[in-house]
């Protein structure tokens, strides 16, 4: 349990009042939360919310304008060597060194962390990520998906206790996603802490025990995934229509082409919405009532602009 772990060891990652200003843009504004050892933690937010900036500060790629960040108790600027030794970062950009083969890249990356003679672990990484037959291929010769796998292997080559994945599944095929999540989930079960940013909310819902949502550089939600799902509209009314909706329904609805989704907190609210549609003589098809998912929560928090941040311990 994260709560128990906190009493015996420092948080895996600790953000304290982290702010970052680029020229006149405030990318992060007093972000603060802890990720306990062993957690699978999701960091969500729309583009430009500050997710990558926060991770860049954690990784030492960017300096915070104010606040502190530590990894397993090691400050990322004052005690950067120990902090970085504990971190494995999978960057968002698909980058590679064209001079080396996959295995050479992994051996070199191990050496940077002072690790040598880890051939067995490198073999296991290659095997687990479906790269075994590409071990001696030059990085230039790999497809985008294969390069992405190598990025994951590079981040894990020194067996970091804290793994950070910055949108690792952006633009990758289903097979890689499954391979990757099985492997990362296995590492998490073995005790590694995982911090994930993703645009695929179903992934975050399936994998993450806790989630923080960022909006315009601030934490607007921080809770267990189950609590976030329970705390919002528990039901969603979904239907299709070709007719314009009455304004009172439209302003609360999420409309994608013909598909309309409206949040409803209880059966009475469902009945009220249906009543409005009947009054306006709207013909609906494929009407269904379903449980709200993380996407609904996300949209409610991002667009519903709650008066107070939803923050729980």
């Amino acid at each position, binding site marked *: 349990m994260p709560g128990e772990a906190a009493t015996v060891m420092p948080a895996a990652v600790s953000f304290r009042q982290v702010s970052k200003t680029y020229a006149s843009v405030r990318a992060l504004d007093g972000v603060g939360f802890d990720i306990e050892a062993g957690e699978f933690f999701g960091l969500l937010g729309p583009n430009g919310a500050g997710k990558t900036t926060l991770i860049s500060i954690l990784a030492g*790629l960017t300096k915070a304008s104010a606040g502190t960040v530590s990894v397993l108790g090691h400050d990322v600027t004052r005690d950067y060597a120990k902090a970085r030794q504990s971190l494995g*970062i999978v960057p968002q950009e698909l*980058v590679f*060194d064209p001079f080396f083969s996959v295995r050479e890249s992994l051996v070199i990356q191990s050496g940077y962390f002072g690790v*040598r003679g880890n051939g067995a672990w490198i073999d296991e990484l290659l095997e687990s990520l479906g790269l075994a037959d590409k071990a001696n291929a030059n990085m230039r010769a790999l497809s985008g998906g294969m390069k992405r796998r190598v990025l994951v292997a590079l981040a894990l080559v020194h067996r970091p206790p804290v793994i950070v994945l910055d949108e690792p599944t952006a633009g990758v095929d289903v097979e890689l996603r499954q391979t990757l999540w099985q492997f990362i989930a296995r590492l998490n079960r073995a005790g590694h802490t995982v911090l994930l940013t993703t645009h695929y909310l179903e992934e975050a819902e399936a994998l993450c025990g806790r989630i923080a949502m960022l909006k315009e550089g601030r934490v607007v939600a921080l809770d267990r995934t189950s609590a976030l799902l329970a705390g919002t509209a528990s039901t969603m009314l979904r239907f299709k229509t070709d007719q314009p909706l009455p304004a009172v329904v439209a302003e609360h609805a999420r409309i994608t082409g013909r598909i309309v989704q409206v949040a409803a907190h209880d059966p009475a609210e469902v009945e009220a919405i249906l009543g409005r549609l009947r009054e306006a003589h709207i013909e609906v098809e494929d009407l269904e009532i379903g449980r709200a998912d993380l996407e609904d929560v996300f949209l409610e928090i991002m667009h519903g602009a709650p008066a107070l941040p939803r923050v729980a311990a």
Partner: protein
Amino acid sequence: MTGWRTLFYKEVLRFWKVAFQTVAAPVLTAVLYLLIFGHVLEDRVKVFDSVGYTSFLIPGLVMMSVLQNAFANSSSSLIQSKVTGNLVFLLVTPLSHRAWFAAYVGASIVRGLVVGAGVLLVAAWFAPLPLAEPAWIVVFAFAGAATMGALGLIAALWAEKFDQIAAFQNFLIMPMTFLSGVFYSVGSLPDFWQRLSHLNPFLYTIDGFRRGFFGVSDVSPWTSLGVVAASLALVSWLALHLLAIGYKIRQ
């Protein structure tokens, strides 16, 4: 293999994998200079009393190759990593700024010396080359290569694109190495040009290096050593400082 040694090894492996371009090509260029200038000027130019022009030319060409290639190694490697984004693999490691410096400059020294040795080996076929005071050869080759390795780091940290590095190389490094007494003794220049040449730190590197072969030089080797050591200290301090603050690599 740990820390900086891995980075050093990687930097050496990087240029060695493309040795045709990074070693063989500069050796060929230097040898072409030697053949052409040596052929044309051997009987027309008198430099030191007892030294033929082709012999005189060899140490200058060797040192020029050492300097240019040491600069090219650290600058091209770092700017490539910056522009293509793979510098992130290094930025996330626990390596200190001193480790970066030692590895990049160390690999630059290796490349400079490998190319210099190549030029020397080939050129020695064309003219007699004494070894009057060999300690100076070693001292100036190392110090010159280290200075240029550190300068290459500074240039690549400052530059944001390839053509800025190319400009640094073509408009600063090339003219300064060419006009440093590689092809002539600065003692033979008119007074104004002689005084101007003495402001060029590369002159001292080449003059001191040449002293090791012939036992004669335009400037006292101790003066040259002082200038070269001061240049090395200055560029090393600046490179270390820029790496420590993450200049243009950590926002």
